[in-house]
Each structure stands twice: as C-alpha cells, then as structure tokens.
C-alpha cells in the first residue's frame, strides 16, 4: 500500500482527550485504571476499568455517539473534506449501553419497547451520526469484527484511498457497558487488579472505553493543500484462525498470517520493523499465543514490543484505532511506550520488551496488532515515509 498519508488524528480515552494528553501519558506510563463508576456492578466485584472523564463528553446523547463525535472532530480539525470519501468505523457493541439500559428498565415487557432500542443498538447508526453532524458525504461502512473492528476499518479505508484516491475518516469507538463487563467476567477473563500484559502474574484484562479517528488522504493531495503529514498507513493484513469461538490459536497461526500479510502489503521485511504495539490483553492465553506468533514472524531479531492496554484498558472495538493513533504518535515523536503493568516478564513469552520508562528512538516502521473473538486477527503497518 503506497502513498496513504495520515493528516489528522483524534483520540479520547481514560488517559484524556487529544494527542498531547496521550503523549504525556505514554511517557509517564501511569495507569488510570480505577474501579468502575459508570454503572453499579451489582453482585460483581468492582473491577478496574479505563473510564473516560465525564467532563470531556457532557451528557447530551448516547455515550458512544459522544465519544465518536469528540474524536472525529479532533481528527478533522474543523475541516469537512470535500469530494468522494469513505467513513469506515469499527465497533464491537455500538450503542449497547443505551439499549441494555432500556432493556433492564423494561425487562423486555411486551409493549414497553421504545424507539431507542433499535436506534442505538444498530452499529451502523454511528456513521450516519458522523455524516449528519459533521456535514460529510461519503460511503459508510461499519466493521464489527469484535476487538479487531477498528483496525479493519482503518485497513479498509486506507486500501480504498490507495486504490481510488479521495479521503477516508477511519477509526472506532466502544463505551463501557454492563454486557461486556458481565460478559468478560462470565468468561473469567477480567483481572481484579489493573491488567499486567506479558507479566508472569497476569490474571486477565481490564476493560476500557474510548474512540479514535484518523483522517487519510493521498500523499499528493495532502502536500498540495499543505496539510501536515503525521505518518503513512502502509500495510493491512487480516486472517482467521478458523480454530475457536473465543480462544486464540495456541501457536498464533492467524496472527502470523495477518502480520506476514501486512508486511507484504507494506513491501517491507520483518527486520525493517522497529516496534510492535501488541494486542497484549494480559489474558493468559492471548499473551502466550501472541508471543509465539511474534517469534514466528520476527525470529531472534525481534523488534521492540509493548502493550498499551495497561494505559487505556482494553477498549474492544476501539482498541485498533486507539493503538493506531498511539503508533503514529510514537512514529512522530520518536518515543516508544513501555508496557504499563509489566514488572516480571513471563519467561514463556520470549520477546524484546520495551524497557521500563519507554525509549526515545527514531522509528521508521511500526506494527499494530489487534485480535478478536471468532479467531479474527488483524495487523496494520504505519511508516514514517510512503
């Protein structure tokens, strides 16, 4: 994939709003994960989560819409791109927070349904909101491939820009919700302490929420209008494990295929990669399988590896977009974030961890991994040059 420039970034998460807040947080490496306050956890323990400061998204509409618009407006920087374009958004649960509130209030009683149920439950509602609120005219696609949703939205949007020009607003969103909080608990995947990716003592993931968007356009168009080029999307690879509904392939088959496909798309060798922002959820199975996959792709010459989920929590469908923004920030700032929460590396995971405190280093190519339920594996490559 050639010539797809990133000319706008927007992000909101538990770390705050905007690039500045996230760069500071990457450098400081302090976890914002705290016991959930968005809803009462009922008979469940109050697990730590990455909750967005409510002051950033004043309550006027459903939470996922507020998160979406907040980040998308940042990415566009007050400008509505003209001409044909694509909006590709990834989300796992869309407006489930609002539809579950409605359901729990009415408990499914016949005749109690209101318009809000389907209005906010449909994932595709969010792209329509962007079109209306931001005055855009574009083809709309909503990807819902679980925790790789927004990574696939970015890859698809970038591939459209590479093939036919125009512009693409790509990214993703997910808000915290009871269904994911109770659901990941039912799978015994929630950690009682802030998550510790790749750590020997890791016990599971910490949920998070947020949104992030990237504005993509052909390099030539960006240069012509004098837009700042923050980086390039150069590779997208996705592959399926075809193995299990929720567990990763134990040898990371799909993850290997996704990374190799993304590197081939970028036209680079494994040795050209400086840093991998791992999926790194801190579940026992994911981190081991991803470690094996990284070894299979990169061998002994492993690039620097870290997971940023100790900073943001696992934001599910938004994770690919949030971590893509962090990757572009790493490229443009020359700062590689460490894995927050990692204290005693699991000896079974033989990768080259970013040292505590992070590392200042010029980067030319970075990979972002995102994996999801159903054996979905996606890798993106971001580069400092086209």
């Amino acid at each position: 994939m050639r010539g797809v420039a990133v000319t706008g970034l927007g992000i909101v998460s538990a770390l705050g709003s905007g690039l500045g807040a996230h760069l500071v947080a990457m450098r400081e490496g302090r976890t914002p994960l705290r016991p959930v306050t968005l809803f009462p956890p009922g008979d469940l323990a109050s697990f730590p989560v990455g909750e967005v400061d409510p002051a950033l998204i004043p309550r006027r509409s459903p939470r996922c819409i507020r998160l979406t618009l907040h980040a998308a407006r940042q990415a566009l920087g007050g400008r509505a791109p003209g001409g044909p374009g694509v909006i590709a958004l990834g989300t796992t649960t869309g407006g489930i927070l609002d539809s579950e509130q409605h359901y729990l209030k009415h408990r499914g009683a016949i005749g109690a349904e209101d318009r809000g149920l389907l209005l906010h439950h449909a994932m595709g509602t969010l792209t329509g909101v962007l079109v209306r609120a931001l005055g855009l005219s574009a083809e709309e696609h909503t990807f819902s491939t679980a925790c790789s949703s927004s990574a696939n939205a970015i890859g698809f949007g970038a591939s459209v820009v590479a093939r036919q020009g125009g512009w693409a607003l790509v990214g993703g969103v997910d808000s915290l919700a009871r269904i994911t909080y109770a659901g990941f608990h039912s799978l015994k995947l929630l950690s009682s302490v802030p998550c510790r990716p790749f750590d020997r003592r890791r016990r599971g993931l910490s949920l998070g929420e947020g949104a992030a968007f990237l504005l993509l356009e052909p390099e030539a168009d960006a240069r012509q209008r004098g837009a700042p080029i923050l980086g390039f999307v150069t590779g997208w690879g996705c592959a399926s494990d075809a193995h299990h509904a929720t567990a990763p392939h134990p040898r990371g088959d799909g993850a290997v295929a996704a990374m190799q496909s993304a590197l081939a798309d970028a036209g680079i060798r494994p040795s050209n990669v400086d840093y991998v922002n791992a999926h790194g959820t801190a579940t026992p199975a994911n981190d081991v399988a991803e470690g094996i996959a990284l070894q299979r792709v990169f061998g002994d010459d492993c690039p620097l590896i870290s997971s940023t989920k100790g900073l943001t929590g696992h934001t599910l469908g938004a994770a690919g977009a949030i971590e893509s923004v962090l990757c572009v920030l790493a490229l443009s700032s020359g700062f590689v974030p460490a894995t927050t929460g990692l204290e005693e590396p699991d000896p079974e995971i033989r990768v080259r961890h970013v040292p505590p405190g992070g590392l200042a280093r010029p980067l030319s190519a970075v990979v972002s991994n995102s994996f999801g339920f159903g054996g979905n594996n996606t890798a993106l490559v971001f580069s400092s040059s086209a």
Partner: protein
Amino acid sequence: MTPTVQGLGAVDAPGADPDPRAHRLPRLERLALGAAREALAGHSPESLGLVVGTGYGGLAMTEAFLRSVVDRGMAFGSATAFHQSVPHSAAGYLSMLLGIRGPVLTISQRELSGESALRVGLALLDRVEQVLVVAAEEQTSLLEAGYQAFGSVFRVAEGAAAVLLGPGPGRLRVERCDLFSHPASPRRFASPAQLGPRLVESVATKGANVLVSIAAPTPAVERAERAALGPEARILEDQPGTTRVAFHPSAGLARFVLAARHLLTTSGESVCVLHGLALGGGQSITVVRHDA
C-alpha cells in the same frame, strides 16, 4: 477484471447441516451457514475471504444474555450467550466450519448491511482469489417491536443469502456496487428528492432491457421509487425483503441473489439495477450484468 458471480445461495429457514458442530449454533449462524454452503457448492477455493453482513447480529443471544443478568444477577451472565451476542459470531463460526483462513470480516450497516458487505467483498478481491459474501438476519420479538416503534409498517422476516465472487470466468458480472449517504433522521429513509437522482441516473445509463429491483421497505418509499423511475420501468415484483413480502435488514443481498438467478434464465444480454435504502439516509446502487 470485472468481478463475476461464481456461486449463489439463499435460505429463509435454518436447514440440517452435515457438520454436527453446527447443530447447536444459534439460529442466525445456522441461517448464514445454509446460504454459505449453497453458494460454495462445487467449489473448493484455495484462497478465500469471507464478509458477513448483518444489521443487528445476534440480537436473540444479546437478549438471552441480558435476561440471564436480569434473572440471576451480573455475576451469572451466560458465557455462551455473551460471545454469541457479538455481531462477528456468525463469521467466526463460518470460518471454523468452512475452514476459511483468509480475511474474515463482519459489516453491520443497518438496512444496507448486505450491500455494504458486497462492496467490501469486491474490494477484498485485491487480496484473495475468491470472496464469499453472506448476509443474514434473524427474526426476534425485539427486532419486530423495535421496527414497529419506529412507526413504520415493516413486516419483519428473516433469512440469509450468499454470493461467491471471483475474478472470472462467469456469465454474471458485478459492474457496480456503490453506497451513498444523505443527511436524514436516523428514523427515516432518504426523502424522494434525495433518493431519486441516483436511482434514475443508474437506470438511465444502462440502456434498454434493464430490470430494476427496488428497495420498497415501506409503501411510502416504494411509491417514491416507482414515481422516480416512471411507468416504463421494468421492476422486479414481489422481491424478498420488500414491504410486499417481508422486510429484514440484510435483505439487499437476498434480492441480489434472486435477481441474479432471474438474469441467468434470460437468453440475451440483460442488466439488473438493485436499489438499496437504509434508515438514516443510506442509499446503494448495485448493477449486475448477464452476458449472453
């Protein structure tokens, strides 16, 4: 090379599947699997991708999970219902049961989920040799009640359709699949003034012998589509997914399959323009051509 249609499938009820792993799958997954197997019959693709379109995904399993939380508490949600409530569940199961290891994606674009999946599937042909596009929706009381609450007159149905795409050869070519957005309330379709120009232009440029499959999600929208096209238009009547039969959010691909099968019965060159509409202002134009 213009992509060709190499397999078609459509079901309106789950059937028996030869794989015992399929027997306990949710209804949505079994609908999707039935259509997928039909489209893949006689094919053993080496390099295959999958795109599943679904407007509401596993709504029944979402309700089952929420019910378990209501009945027994947050600590006792059903693990199975949870992962089967995720919209990507059907695509994940299909990849396992059909051994698909290429790109496997799920699209959820309200009432244009089938068309959006087709558009993404066509784009994936840059990356894999063949792409299976599946659209599926299950009928649930929540879906029915939700549509009724919109004040629409939808008769909600369920079903699944599948199209196997490849680079050719084939007698059916997908000439175009484009999606557009119009500013509209999330509870409304595009207005007659918004939907008319794209629809008329797409039909006018195809010359004679053009069939049109209209979206017709409600009688009012159907009247607007017919008025835009004029009395001379050759409209495929009683299409699945329209208000005259029964509507479901992924029915656009079911209409595509029916139109493609109809074209295959014709002797000369013929074209079908398929019009799609979604609540919130989405519009699609798909053109499939049959070469004599």
